[in-house]
């Protein structure tokens, strides 16, 4: 009984530590996920030695392939690794709280200033920059992904369906569904081939 209470308290303490450290990281990291990762490496691999670099790399690989926001996924994996379920939740809340506070304030100002003559002029210029920013992200993703003929076919089919009015969510879910079927079929064929080979050997 007593032991359990001690365990709970230390879990809570770890949770608070994780919350505070990630809150700090969340406050000062501009430029999204990758900048945050660099900070995590400094803080937890170099300074506190809580995980090894390889473990962090593994978490990044998994966090990237799970739906949602990459950095919050990685935060959850990391927080759980260090402090269990409470640790995971505290870490995710720590990394998101600064963004929530800052954006709430910015939104307030946005509403009172967006109709000002000079702000409108600046925003018109900024919107023209948003297109190359998104375009550049698409290009980088393309360089990473478009390496096989199949990737081009999927891209073409998805864009055609998009133009025909199919919603984005349906497109993503369909692609994931086809992938699951493809994976299952591929495994089945491999298994069948293995049993045939085994049978011949017998």
């Amino acid at each position, binding site marked *: 009984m007593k032991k359990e209470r001690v365990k709970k308290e230390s879990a809570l303490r770890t949770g608070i530590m994780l919350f505070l450290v990630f809150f700090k990281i969340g406050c000062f990291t501009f430029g999204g996920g990758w900048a945050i990762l660099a900070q995590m490496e400094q803080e937890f691999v170099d300074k506190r030695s809580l995980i090894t670099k390889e473990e962090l790399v593994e978490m990044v690989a*998994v966090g990237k392939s799970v739906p949602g926001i990459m950095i919050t996924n990685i935060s959850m994996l990391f927080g*759980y690794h260090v402090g269990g379920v409470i640790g995971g*939740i505290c870490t995710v809340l720590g990394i998101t709280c600064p963004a929530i506070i800052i954006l709430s304030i910015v939104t307030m100002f946005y509403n009172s200033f*967006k109709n000002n003559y000079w702000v409108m002029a600046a925003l018109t*210029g900024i919107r*023209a*920059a948003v297109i190359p920013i998104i375009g550049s992200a698409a290009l980088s993703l393309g360089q990473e992904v*478009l390496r096989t003929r199949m990737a081009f076919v999927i891209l073409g089919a998805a864009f055609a369906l998009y133009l025909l009015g199919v919603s984005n*969510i349906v497109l993503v879910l369909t692609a994931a569904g086809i992938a699951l079927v493809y994976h299952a079929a591929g495994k089945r064929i491999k298994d069948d081939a293995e049993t045939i080979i085994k049978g011949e050997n017998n």
Partner: protein
Amino acid sequence: MIYLQLFFSFMKIGFTSFGGMSMVPLILEEMQSHGWMTARDLANLVAIAEMTPGPLGVNCATFTGTQTAGTLGGLVAVLGVLTPAFTLTLVIAIFFEKFKDSAVMRTVMKFVKPVCIAMLLGVLVTLGKDTYFSDGGLLIFSILISAVMMVLLRKYKWSVPKVIGLSALMGILFYGVLPLAQTIH
């Protein structure tokens, strides 16, 4: 019930997006289908989210939720977009060793990533219409700004906040100072 709608909208966005900018097309679609936000607001939001610290998805959820239903709306939207982390990722964290080299997820990513590119192209078409055509006229200065920023981003590897800063200055010059100067003449 606006809060529930916000929560479920952002939960949907969370579960169907895979990292960074690929969230933007999904957000635009949800916002337009509910009439919560215009393409113009979304473009402004992307710029704001890129200039403030924190992950893009959380920034977008806070902005949209707060715009639509105040501070509580912002919190609810963030909780929605975090649902994958609190559910799916938590389960994966518990079974991390088994999931580490999952071939299934690799195959899923192989199919979903090209779709993300298609969605980004789609959102570029939508935003392009709003950014370059206004009241039936073509905004030549906006095209000029886009071209300059593309070169700065790709060729000279400028950081995004720097690009946004310069484009704001160019916007003030072309759409603020220039029209005033013309009326004075």
